[in-house]
């Protein structure tokens, strides 16, 4: 029996599963940091909008 396909298959499974194990926290961190960044931006925008205008525009025409 040719043993090569079984050896190759085993090492391929080992490499693929460890690659997934390595990539998943990296991807999760990237997504989380992006989400947190968007949340910060939204909060900043909300804070800026709720601030009173420094000089309200004049409504008198005459």
């Amino acid at each position, binding site marked *: 029996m040719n*043993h090569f396909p079984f050896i190759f*298959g085993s090492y391929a499974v080992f490499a693929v599963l*460890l690659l997934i194990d390595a990539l998943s926290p990296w991807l999760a961190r990237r997504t*989380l940091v992006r989400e947190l960044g968007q949340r910060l931006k939204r909060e900043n925008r909300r804070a800026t909008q709720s601030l009173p205008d420094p000089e309200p525009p004049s409504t008198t025409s005459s």
Partner: protein
Amino acid sequence: MHPLLLWFHKTGSPPEFYRLSGKFLPWLIALAALTGLPGLYLGLFETPADYLQRESVRIMYIHVPSAWMSMFIFGFMAVVGAMALIWHVKIAEVLARCAAPIGATFTAITLITGALWGKPTWGTYWVWDARLTSELVLLFLYFGVMALHNAVEDPRRAARAAAILALVGLVNLPIIHYSVEWWNTLHQGQSIRLFAGDKSSIDSSMLTPLILMAFATKFWFGASLLSRARVQVLEQESGKEWVRQLVRKELGSDEPGKTP
């Protein structure tokens, strides 16, 4: 408070853990590469074929260290789970949660590579042998712990439930280890005895890559655990100022009135 517990609480505080783990992570990755690459090279190209298993013995260099890791990680998960249960250490909950998928990965590798080794050696991919079945039960226990963490909304309650399951599941570890002695199994007995070197039946040329791979998988586990725990800590502490500062710094956005 006991000094050791005090130290654990201090280093286990989320910002301190995040800082320390960031320092350890590159070293663990480097050590995993430094031990794993020579281990793989020796195992694949330098060691001789076995007189009985022939070339398929090369599968052993990944199968056996993965099997050791599958049990080691479960033990680790139970220990940190117990610490979380007894002393309510938050970071222990995080570590227990993050260890489960890594343990499941190593258990899956053990089962798949074992099946691929079994076909040319035993003539079958699978038998309901005590060793194989107990290892499959270990995989289901890992799935159970992961499911509990995801099913319960409150992370602290989820951690407690998962820790109890991990502690109960500990009973499976001696069953896996001694299954080849307690029952008449198709799986071979132990070839390596760490504490009785003269009783080991493995040749030293095969032992070197095996030991290297055993260290590599340990370092891999350390690196994977820390990188997962760092993400978990960021997620749990997302409302805290230190996380907001870190995100601002990473994304390069500046907010007036805040200092890094």
